[in-house]
């Protein structure tokens, strides 16, 4: 396979039609009161052809399914929890927020590193293929292709090196903040922290885990966690100390109780359908 960019660009040999008159036609024929959200789709009251009817049925079924899942998850214990308050700023909250940001940055860098490693691998495969095709006595054209492929490998290797350096640069910062945080534990003011922690599995930043509080006060039956999967098309897995304790369909919320945990730290993480080489950094939570 040639360079994917060059290869897929063949599609651009096709001449796109000018569709603006078609757009206007559809606009003019639609009744007033158009949709306001891409999630809803279709025109209100518009006569639906088979394709649009299928689309609308699919969307309606999707919304219904989403509601059922959301209700089902919410109805589980302790589904009647109010939204979790953000604790008042304390030194620990300040460090927690810095640590959350640092972990998010580290994860972005890790993701970038994975992508570049994959790019380098592809470039190396390409170089090997070209060299093998050329054999012992390459023609001038083949030599030029080998040279270009080698340059692509070198460029990718340099980018990967920079991405690795970025990860190594960020790691000590995370460790320092973890140590700073450890020095503030156990919290002398545990009563100021909420009884429910909200964990957002989110794409703000670059797909991460966000904890609303550094400390959660456990009740008699355990620590309460509200997990929110903010991705509309992504299944999330809620992981505690390396074990998946709950699986969330896209765009759902789950209330989870962690029973029998002694006072102390647990490591929290949202993860997704990813290969095992994605080692996401986890977020510490103190259960009081």
């Amino acid at each position, binding site marked *: *396979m*040639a360079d*994917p*960019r060059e*290869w*897929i*660009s*063949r*599609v*651009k*040999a*096709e001449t*796109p*039609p000018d*569709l*603006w008159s*078609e*757009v*206007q036609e*559809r*606009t003019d024929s*639609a009744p007033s009161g*158009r*949709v*306001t*959200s*891409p999630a809803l*789709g279709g*025109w209100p009251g518009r006569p639906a052809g*088979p*394709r649009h009817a*299928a*689309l609308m049925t*699919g*969307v309606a079924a999707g919304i219904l399914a989403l509601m059922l899942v959301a209700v089902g998850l919410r109805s589980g214990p302790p589904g009647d929890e109010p939204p979790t308050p953000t604790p008042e700023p304390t030194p620990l909250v300040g460090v927690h927020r810095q640590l959350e940001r640092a972990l998010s940055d580290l*994860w*972005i860098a890790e*993701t970038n590193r*994975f*992508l570049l490693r*994959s790019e380098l691998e*592809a470039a190396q*495969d390409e170089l090997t*293929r070209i060299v093998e*095709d050329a054999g012992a006595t390459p023609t001038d054209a083949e030599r030029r292709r080998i040279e270009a492929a080698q340059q692509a490998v070198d460029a990718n290797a340099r980018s990967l090196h920079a991405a690795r350096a970025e990860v190594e640069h960020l790691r000590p910062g995370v460790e320092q903040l973890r140590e700073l945080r450890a020095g503030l534990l156990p919290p002398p003011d545990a009563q100021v922290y909420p009884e429910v922690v909200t964990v957002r599995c989110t*794409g703000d930043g*670059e*797909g991460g885990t966000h904890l609303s509080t550094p400390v959660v006060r456990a009740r008699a039956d355990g620590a309460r966690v509200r997990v929110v999967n903010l*991705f*509309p*098309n*992504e299944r999330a897995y809620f992981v505690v100390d390396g074990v998946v304790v709950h699986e969330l369909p*896209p765009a759902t919320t789950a209330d989870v109780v962690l029973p029998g945990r002694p006072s102390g730290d647990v490591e929290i993480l949202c993860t*997704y*359908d*990813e*290969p095992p080489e*994605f080692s*996401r950094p986890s977020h510490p939570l103190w259960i009081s």
Partner: protein
Amino acid sequence: MTDASEIERVYREVGDRLWWALLAYTGDRELASDAVAEAFARAVGAADTIRDPAAWVWRVAFRVATASLRTPKPTGREAEESYELEEGAIDVIQALKRLPDRQRAVFILFYLDDQPTAWIAELLGMAPATVSVHLHRARRRLREILGDDDG
């Protein structure tokens, strides 16, 4: 906010790129055209509520195209599609068709339209890490499909 003339400006700016991406995604000129026209028509109708019309249109067009792909086609459409396409594009599109929808969408947006992974992630509603994973897998799969025949 936005008005209809702004939507037309966006169409002139991104319409062709969007159409190519949808052609690669669906493998069908008619579906690509339908999705583009539908998305822009909806954008005109909802113009006063849209903050970022380009992103909005991309999102809706891919959604419309995905729904169309999942609708059964009349018999004989496959042959028509190949006949309508330029020879150079046919192999590419046939290979892409063998990828799962999301892998294909990620690959196209990244390589055909040069979009950053964060933008693709937002558009498709997935984690950026997942975009990277789809990209990685798509590339591997296409290499398997195309082998050394191409290039």
